[in-house]
């Protein structure tokens, strides 16, 4: 049973404070559903504790009379009273009693509309300082993951795949930062990209072992070369739109990608 099903079943219980054995079994091992069940139980308790106005005197007897009254069940519409505010109030109350479902639906719709309006127009919530400080740097996480991948790589093929991924991520980051970061920082990123392509990918392409079939080598190198071509094309395209001080770094990335792609294709043709 998945968590959605469990939570739906909790909502469907007559009293969510009393879980069935199956639901209890699931919530014992699932923190999310356990929390959901706790909240549902708390809500039930809170709703039960809401103050309810006392019924008018004699209401119970009237209700029992209504229920035990002989046919016809459908009563004729009483004649409208022309005077007295009480008549209108009584009619309204009677109308509401007879159309409780529609009235509740209308009230719920109004509540949703008001809630939606509030949600759409509320001012944006400022990000607390604490939250802002813990923002993770996606590129740092990715580079760490690639280093671990490279440390565990048992073959040049795996190293090529990891380096190809690292190059792609660096190029993507540089493109993302092209309109934001000053030129010096983009040049730094371009330097990293050049290093990965020039000192990583290209030498590794020559180290593919002889026992790897030529077609397999060619396919692998061609795949990486195609990605480098895409990096080059994207950097070229962006350099036409990016601020002027970003353009040299983007051009360096495009050049490194094109050069790397050519060398990888040459290695693929040579069947190294």
């Amino acid at each position, binding site marked *: 049973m998945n968590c959605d099903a469990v939570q739906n079943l909790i909502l*469907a219980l007559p009293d969510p404070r009393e879980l069935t054995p199956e639901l209890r079994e699931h919530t014992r091992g699932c923190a999310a559903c356990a929390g959901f069940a706790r909240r549902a139980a708390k809500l039930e308790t809170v709703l039960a504790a809401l103050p309810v106005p006392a019924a008018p005197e004699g209401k119970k007897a009237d209700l029992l009379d209504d229920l035990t009254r002989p046919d016809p069940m459908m009563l004729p519409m009483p004649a409208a009273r022309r005077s007295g505010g009480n008549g209108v109030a009584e009619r309204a109350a009677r109308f509401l009693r007879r159309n409780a479902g529609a009235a509740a639906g209308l009230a719920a719709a109004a509540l949703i509309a008001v809630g939606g309006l509030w949600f759409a127009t509320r001012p944006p919530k400022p990000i607390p300082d604490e939250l802002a400080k813990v*923002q*993770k740097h996606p590129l*740092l996480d990715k*580079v*760490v993951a690639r*280093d671990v991948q490279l440390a565990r790589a048992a073959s040049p093929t795996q190293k090529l795949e990891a380096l190809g991924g690292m190059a792609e991520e660096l190029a993507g980051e540089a493109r993302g930062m092209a309109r*934001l970061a000053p030129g010096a920082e983009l040049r730094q990123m371009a330097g990293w990209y050049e290093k*990965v392509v020039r000192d990583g990918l290209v030498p590794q392409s020559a180290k593919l072992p002889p026992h790897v079939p030529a077609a397999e080598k060619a396919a692998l190198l061609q795949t990486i070369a195609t990605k480098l071509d895409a990096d080059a094309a994207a950097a070229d395209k962006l350099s036409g739109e990016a601020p002027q001080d970003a353009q040299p770094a983007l051009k360096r990335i495009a050049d490194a990608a094109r050069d790397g792609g050519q060398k990888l294709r040459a290695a693929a043709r040579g069947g190294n």
Partner: protein
Amino acid sequence: MTRWPHTLLAFVLLSAWAGAQNGAPALTAEDKVRLFRDNSALIESLVNDGVALSAAETPVKRAEHSRSAARAIVNAIAQAATAENADRVVELAGLFRTVARDAVVPALDDARRVVSPESPDGKKLRELREQAARDVSDVRAAAPPTGKLGTNARVKDALNALDEISDALK
């Protein structure tokens, strides 16, 4: 009879759930530039170590460059600790743990299986293991238990998580 209370309950719960969907805030342009500046020296080291790892042909070299990557993170942790930035210490300690557990320890263990303890590589390997153990100690020392950082619950948890690395390096 219970249909309406249940519908109302479902509506209230759904509203509460929808209200709680704050999600991770998207990074603003300033955040991106700030994060890049904070991490650029570390990323540069890690890129260099990654390329060096790709060129490493022996298990000892792999262990050496893995440890170098871990050390770069230790240095960044020391800086974050000096600045008393607990959140950054926690984040970097997590990354250090990943590199130590998934790269350094396996590389040292792999190398130990193929290197004779009496050989120069064997000696190098012992040094690397000691250095790696010292790296873990340095991370702990950056946030001593009695200091402001060391009493932070998240920092404590992050440092306690390094116990497995210390054990593996014994």
